[in-house]
Protein backbone atom coordinates (compact mmCIF):
# COMPACT_ATOMS: atom_id res chain seq x y z
CA UNK A 1 0.00 0.00 0.00
CA UNK A 2 1.41 3.41 -0.94
CA UNK A 3 1.85 6.14 1.64
CA UNK A 4 -0.95 8.18 0.06
CA UNK A 5 -3.33 5.22 0.21
CA UNK A 6 -2.32 4.68 3.81
CA UNK A 7 -2.96 8.36 4.65
CA UNK A 8 -6.44 8.11 3.17
CA UNK A 9 -7.06 4.88 5.05
CA UNK A 10 -5.95 6.44 8.33
CA UNK A 11 -8.34 9.31 7.75
CA UNK A 12 -11.19 6.88 7.14
CA UNK A 13 -10.22 4.93 10.26
CA UNK A 14 -10.53 8.06 12.36
CA UNK A 15 -14.10 8.82 11.16
CA UNK A 16 -16.84 6.80 12.91
CA UNK A 17 -18.93 6.65 9.71
CA UNK A 18 -16.15 5.03 7.67
CA UNK A 19 -14.17 3.28 10.39
CA UNK A 20 -15.52 -0.22 10.08
CA UNK A 21 -15.27 -0.34 6.31
CA UNK A 22 -11.74 1.03 6.45
CA UNK A 23 -10.73 -1.56 9.04
CA UNK A 24 -12.12 -4.31 6.86
CA UNK A 25 -9.80 -3.07 4.15
CA UNK A 26 -6.90 -3.19 6.62
CA UNK A 27 -7.70 -6.79 7.47
CA UNK A 28 -7.99 -7.79 3.83
CA UNK A 29 -4.74 -6.01 2.94
CA UNK A 30 -2.51 -7.28 5.73
CA UNK A 31 -3.99 -10.47 7.16
CA UNK A 32 -2.07 -12.93 4.99
CA UNK A 33 1.26 -11.23 5.58
CA UNK A 34 0.63 -11.09 9.32
CA UNK A 35 -0.63 -14.67 9.40
CA UNK A 36 2.72 -16.04 8.24
CA UNK A 37 4.60 -14.06 10.86
CA UNK A 38 2.29 -15.46 13.50
CA UNK A 39 2.40 -18.99 12.10
CA UNK A 40 6.18 -19.10 12.21
CA UNK A 41 6.02 -18.43 15.95
CA UNK A 42 3.06 -20.56 17.02
CA UNK A 43 3.63 -23.23 14.34
CA UNK A 44 0.14 -24.76 14.01
CA UNK A 45 -2.64 -23.41 11.83
CA UNK A 46 -5.29 -23.66 14.58
CA UNK A 47 -3.18 -21.61 17.00
CA UNK A 48 -2.25 -19.09 14.31
CA UNK A 49 -5.93 -18.62 13.46
CA UNK A 50 -6.77 -17.98 17.13
CA UNK A 51 -3.93 -15.50 17.49
CA UNK A 52 -4.98 -13.69 14.32
CA UNK A 53 -8.44 -13.02 15.77
CA UNK A 54 -6.81 -11.57 18.89
CA UNK A 55 -4.44 -9.45 16.81
CA UNK A 56 -7.19 -7.70 14.92
CA UNK A 57 -9.46 -7.32 17.92
CA UNK A 58 -6.56 -5.68 19.74
CA UNK A 59 -5.80 -3.44 16.77
CA UNK A 60 -9.47 -2.43 16.50
CA UNK A 61 -9.80 -1.59 20.21
CA UNK A 62 -6.49 0.33 20.25
CA UNK A 63 -6.91 2.26 17.00
CA UNK A 64 -6.84 5.51 18.96
CA UNK A 65 -3.37 4.59 20.24
CA UNK A 66 -1.90 4.50 16.76
CA UNK A 67 -0.48 7.96 16.15
CA UNK A 68 1.28 7.18 12.88
CA UNK A 69 4.79 7.29 14.29
CA UNK A 70 5.35 4.19 12.17
CA UNK A 71 3.72 2.63 9.12
CA UNK A 72 0.42 0.86 9.75
CA UNK A 73 1.87 -2.55 8.91
CA UNK A 74 4.73 -2.00 11.38
CA UNK A 75 2.21 -1.30 14.14
CA UNK A 76 0.15 -4.37 13.22
CA UNK A 77 3.27 -6.52 13.00
CA UNK A 78 4.30 -5.56 16.53
CA UNK A 79 0.83 -6.43 17.85
CA UNK A 80 0.99 -9.74 16.00
CA UNK A 81 4.39 -10.68 17.40
CA UNK A 82 3.42 -9.69 20.95
CA UNK A 83 0.20 -11.70 20.76
CA UNK A 84 2.09 -14.69 19.36
CA UNK A 85 4.74 -14.57 22.07
CA UNK A 86 2.10 -14.16 24.79
CA UNK A 87 0.32 -17.19 23.38
CA UNK A 88 3.52 -19.24 23.44
CA UNK A 89 4.31 -18.17 27.01
CA UNK A 90 0.84 -19.25 28.15
CA UNK A 91 1.29 -22.53 26.33
CA UNK A 92 4.71 -23.14 27.88
CA UNK A 93 3.37 -22.43 31.37
CA UNK A 94 0.88 -25.23 30.86
CA UNK A 95 3.54 -27.71 29.73
CA UNK A 96 5.93 -29.62 31.99
CA UNK A 97 9.10 -27.76 30.99
CA UNK A 98 10.53 -25.63 28.20
CA UNK A 99 12.69 -28.57 27.09
CA UNK A 100 9.59 -30.69 26.56
CA UNK A 101 8.00 -27.99 24.42
CA UNK A 102 11.00 -27.24 22.20
CA UNK A 103 12.37 -30.74 21.69
CA UNK A 104 9.07 -32.29 20.56
CA UNK A 105 8.40 -29.70 17.86
CA UNK A 106 9.81 -31.65 14.92
CA UNK A 107 7.72 -34.73 15.76
CA UNK A 108 4.56 -32.69 16.24
CA UNK A 109 5.06 -30.89 12.96
CA UNK A 110 5.57 -34.13 11.05
CA UNK A 111 2.16 -35.25 12.37
CA UNK A 112 0.49 -31.93 11.51
CA UNK A 113 -1.69 -32.09 8.37
CA UNK A 114 -0.92 -28.45 7.60
CA UNK A 115 2.82 -29.03 7.53
CA UNK A 116 4.11 -30.59 4.34
CA UNK A 117 7.84 -30.23 4.92
CA UNK A 118 10.25 -33.15 5.32
CA UNK A 119 11.98 -34.14 8.54
CA UNK A 120 14.89 -31.74 7.96
CA UNK A 121 12.51 -28.84 7.53
CA UNK A 122 10.71 -29.87 10.71
CA UNK A 123 14.05 -29.98 12.54
CA UNK A 124 14.81 -26.48 11.28
CA UNK A 125 11.61 -25.28 12.95
CA UNK A 126 12.73 -26.96 16.16
CA UNK A 127 16.11 -25.22 15.95
CA UNK A 128 14.46 -21.86 15.28
CA UNK A 129 12.12 -22.32 18.27
CA UNK A 130 15.14 -22.69 20.53
CA UNK A 131 16.54 -19.28 19.56
CA UNK A 132 15.99 -16.23 21.78
CA UNK A 133 13.06 -14.10 20.59
CA UNK A 134 15.00 -11.41 18.76
CA UNK A 135 17.29 -13.84 16.95
CA UNK A 136 14.27 -15.92 15.99
CA UNK A 137 12.46 -12.97 14.43
CA UNK A 138 15.54 -11.70 12.63
CA UNK A 139 16.38 -15.15 11.31
CA UNK A 140 12.91 -15.87 9.93
CA UNK A 141 12.57 -12.43 8.32
CA UNK A 142 15.94 -12.74 6.64
CA UNK A 143 16.08 -16.46 5.84
CA UNK A 144 12.50 -16.95 4.65
CA UNK A 145 11.44 -13.47 3.49
CA UNK A 146 14.87 -12.24 2.39
CA UNK A 147 14.00 -8.93 4.02
CA UNK A 148 16.53 -6.13 3.65
CA UNK A 149 18.19 -5.07 6.87
CA UNK A 150 17.06 -1.47 6.27
CA UNK A 151 13.41 -2.58 6.18
CA UNK A 152 13.92 -4.89 9.14
CA UNK A 153 15.44 -2.02 11.11
CA UNK A 154 12.23 -0.01 10.75
CA UNK A 155 10.03 -2.98 11.50
CA UNK A 156 11.89 -4.05 14.62
CA UNK A 157 13.11 -0.59 15.66
CA UNK A 158 16.65 -1.93 15.94
CA UNK A 159 19.88 -0.82 14.29
CA UNK A 160 21.04 -2.63 11.18
CA UNK A 161 24.29 -3.53 12.91
CA UNK A 162 22.44 -5.26 15.75
CA UNK A 163 20.24 -7.10 13.28
CA UNK A 164 23.20 -8.35 11.29
CA UNK A 165 24.87 -9.55 14.48
CA UNK A 166 21.67 -11.31 15.56
CA UNK A 167 21.35 -13.03 12.20
CA UNK A 168 24.98 -14.11 12.25
CA UNK A 169 24.58 -15.66 15.71
CA UNK A 170 21.29 -17.32 14.79
CA UNK A 171 22.74 -18.88 11.63
CA UNK A 172 25.72 -20.17 13.58
CA UNK A 173 23.52 -21.76 16.28
CA UNK A 174 21.26 -23.45 13.76
CA UNK A 175 24.22 -24.73 11.76
CA UNK A 176 25.69 -26.24 14.94
CA UNK A 177 22.29 -27.77 15.71
CA UNK A 178 22.36 -29.67 12.43
CA UNK A 179 26.05 -30.54 12.53
CA UNK A 180 25.56 -32.15 15.95
CA UNK A 181 22.97 -34.42 14.34
CA UNK A 182 25.00 -35.26 11.21
Amino acid at each position, binding site marked *: MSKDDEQLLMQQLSEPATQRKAFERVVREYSEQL*YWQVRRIVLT*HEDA*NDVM*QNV*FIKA*WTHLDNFHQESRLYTWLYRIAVNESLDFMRRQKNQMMSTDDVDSGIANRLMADRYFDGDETEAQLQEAIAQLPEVQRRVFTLR*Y*YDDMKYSDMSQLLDTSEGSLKASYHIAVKKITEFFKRRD
Partner: protein
Amino acid sequence: MKMEHNDELYLKQKVGNRNPFRVPDGYFDQLTQQVMQQLPEREETVAKQLSITSQPRARKVQMRPWLYAAACSVLALAMGVSYYFMQAQSTSTDATPMAAAAPAAPANYTASDNSYIDEVADYVMMDNTEIYACLTENY
Protein backbone atom coordinates in the same frame (compact mmCIF):
# COMPACT_ATOMS: atom_id res chain seq x y z
CA MET B 1 31.25 -12.62 7.33
CA LYS B 2 32.62 -15.34 5.05
CA MET B 3 32.01 -17.92 7.75
CA GLU B 4 28.42 -16.73 8.17
CA HIS B 5 27.95 -16.90 4.43
CA ASN B 6 29.27 -20.47 4.44
CA ASP B 7 26.97 -21.42 7.31
CA GLU B 8 24.00 -19.87 5.55
CA LEU B 9 24.92 -21.70 2.37
CA TYR B 10 25.18 -24.95 4.32
CA LEU B 11 21.67 -24.43 5.73
CA LYS B 12 20.11 -23.52 2.41
CA GLN B 13 21.66 -26.55 0.75
CA LYS B 14 20.71 -28.88 3.58
CA VAL B 15 17.22 -27.58 4.39
CA GLY B 16 16.26 -24.92 1.88
CA ASN B 17 14.15 -21.88 2.69
CA ARG B 18 10.82 -23.03 1.32
CA ASN B 19 7.75 -22.28 3.41
CA PRO B 20 6.67 -25.72 4.69
CA PHE B 21 3.45 -24.48 6.35
CA ARG B 22 0.05 -24.82 4.68
CA VAL B 23 -3.44 -23.49 5.30
CA PRO B 24 -6.90 -24.93 4.53
CA ASP B 25 -8.24 -24.13 1.06
CA GLY B 26 -9.82 -20.69 0.86
CA TYR B 27 -8.65 -19.79 4.38
CA PHE B 28 -7.51 -16.26 3.59
CA ASP B 29 -10.68 -15.55 1.61
CA GLN B 30 -12.84 -16.20 4.65
CA LEU B 31 -10.41 -14.82 7.26
CA THR B 32 -11.50 -11.23 6.73
CA GLN B 33 -15.16 -12.10 7.22
CA GLN B 34 -14.33 -14.19 10.28
CA VAL B 35 -12.39 -11.31 11.86
CA MET B 36 -15.01 -8.63 11.07
CA GLN B 37 -17.75 -10.75 12.66
CA GLN B 38 -15.78 -10.82 15.91
CA LEU B 39 -15.14 -7.10 16.19
CA PRO B 40 -17.10 -5.34 18.95
CA GLU B 41 -19.01 -2.14 18.30
CA ARG B 42 -16.71 0.87 18.40
CA GLU B 43 -18.79 2.81 20.99
CA GLU B 44 -18.40 -0.07 23.46
CA THR B 45 -14.66 -0.16 23.05
CA VAL B 46 -14.35 3.62 23.59
CA ALA B 47 -16.50 3.44 26.72
CA LYS B 48 -14.44 0.52 27.96
CA GLN B 49 -11.22 2.47 27.42
CA LEU B 50 -12.63 5.50 29.27
CA SER B 51 -13.67 3.37 32.24
CA ILE B 52 -10.25 1.74 32.31
CA THR B 53 -8.41 5.10 32.23
CA SER B 54 -10.55 6.46 35.09
CA GLN B 55 -9.54 3.65 37.42
CA PRO B 56 -5.77 3.63 37.72
CA ARG B 57 -5.52 6.36 40.38
CA ALA B 58 -7.86 4.66 42.87
CA ARG B 59 -6.48 1.22 42.03
CA LYS B 60 -2.92 2.49 42.55
CA VAL B 61 -3.74 3.72 46.09
CA GLN B 62 -5.61 0.53 47.00
CA MET B 63 -2.73 -1.64 45.94
CA ARG B 64 -0.19 0.00 48.27
CA PRO B 65 -1.89 0.70 51.59
CA TRP B 66 1.19 -0.22 53.62
CA LEU B 67 3.34 2.20 51.66
CA TYR B 68 0.88 5.03 52.09
CA ALA B 69 0.52 4.28 55.80
CA ALA B 70 4.29 4.45 56.20
CA ALA B 71 4.53 7.61 54.11
CA CYS B 72 1.72 9.27 56.07
CA SER B 73 3.41 8.36 59.36
CA VAL B 74 6.68 9.92 58.25
CA LEU B 75 4.91 13.01 56.98
CA ALA B 76 2.83 13.34 60.17
CA LEU B 77 5.99 13.03 62.24
CA ALA B 78 7.76 15.65 60.18
CA MET B 79 4.84 18.04 60.49
CA GLY B 80 4.61 17.34 64.21
CA VAL B 81 8.28 18.10 64.69
CA SER B 82 8.06 21.31 62.70
CA TYR B 83 4.98 22.38 64.67
CA TYR B 84 6.82 21.59 67.90
CA PHE B 85 9.78 23.75 66.94
CA MET B 86 7.44 26.55 65.88
CA GLN B 87 5.77 26.42 69.32
CA ALA B 88 9.15 26.25 71.07
CA GLN B 89 10.33 29.38 69.29
CA SER B 90 7.13 31.36 69.97
CA THR B 91 7.01 30.40 73.71
CA SER B 92 10.69 30.37 74.56
CA THR B 93 10.14 31.43 78.29
CA ASP B 94 7.56 28.70 78.97
CA ALA B 95 8.79 26.62 81.97
CA THR B 96 6.81 23.40 81.30
CA PRO B 97 8.76 20.16 81.68
CA MET B 98 8.22 19.31 78.03
CA ALA B 99 9.59 22.67 76.93
CA ALA B 100 12.55 22.25 79.30
CA ALA B 101 13.24 18.77 77.97
CA ALA B 102 12.78 19.77 74.32
CA PRO B 103 15.81 19.44 72.10
CA ALA B 104 17.10 22.64 70.59
CA ALA B 105 15.62 23.58 67.25
CA PRO B 106 17.96 23.27 64.31
CA ALA B 107 20.10 26.37 64.17
CA ASN B 108 18.98 27.35 60.70
CA TYR B 109 15.28 26.48 61.16
CA THR B 110 12.70 29.31 61.08
CA ALA B 111 8.92 29.29 61.58
CA SER B 112 8.31 30.08 57.92
CA ASP B 113 10.77 27.48 56.65
CA ASN B 114 8.71 24.80 54.91
CA SER B 115 11.62 23.30 53.02
CA TYR B 116 11.94 20.60 55.69
CA ILE B 117 8.37 19.45 54.92
CA ASP B 118 9.13 19.55 51.22
CA GLU B 119 12.23 17.41 51.74
CA VAL B 120 10.23 14.82 53.66
CA ALA B 121 7.47 14.84 51.06
CA ASP B 122 10.06 14.31 48.34
CA TYR B 123 11.67 11.50 50.35
CA VAL B 124 8.40 9.57 50.71
CA MET B 125 7.59 10.38 47.07
CA MET B 126 4.11 11.71 47.66
CA ASP B 127 2.61 14.50 45.63
CA ASN B 128 0.20 17.10 46.99
CA THR B 129 -2.90 15.10 46.11
CA GLU B 130 -1.66 12.10 48.00
CA ILE B 131 -0.62 14.20 51.00
CA TYR B 132 -4.05 15.80 51.22
CA ALA B 133 -5.74 12.41 50.82
CA CYS B 134 -3.55 10.98 53.57
CA LEU B 135 -4.22 13.81 55.96
CA THR B 136 -7.98 13.72 55.41
CA GLU B 137 -8.03 9.90 55.62
CA ASN B 138 -9.50 9.64 52.11
CA TYR B 139 -7.10 6.93 50.86
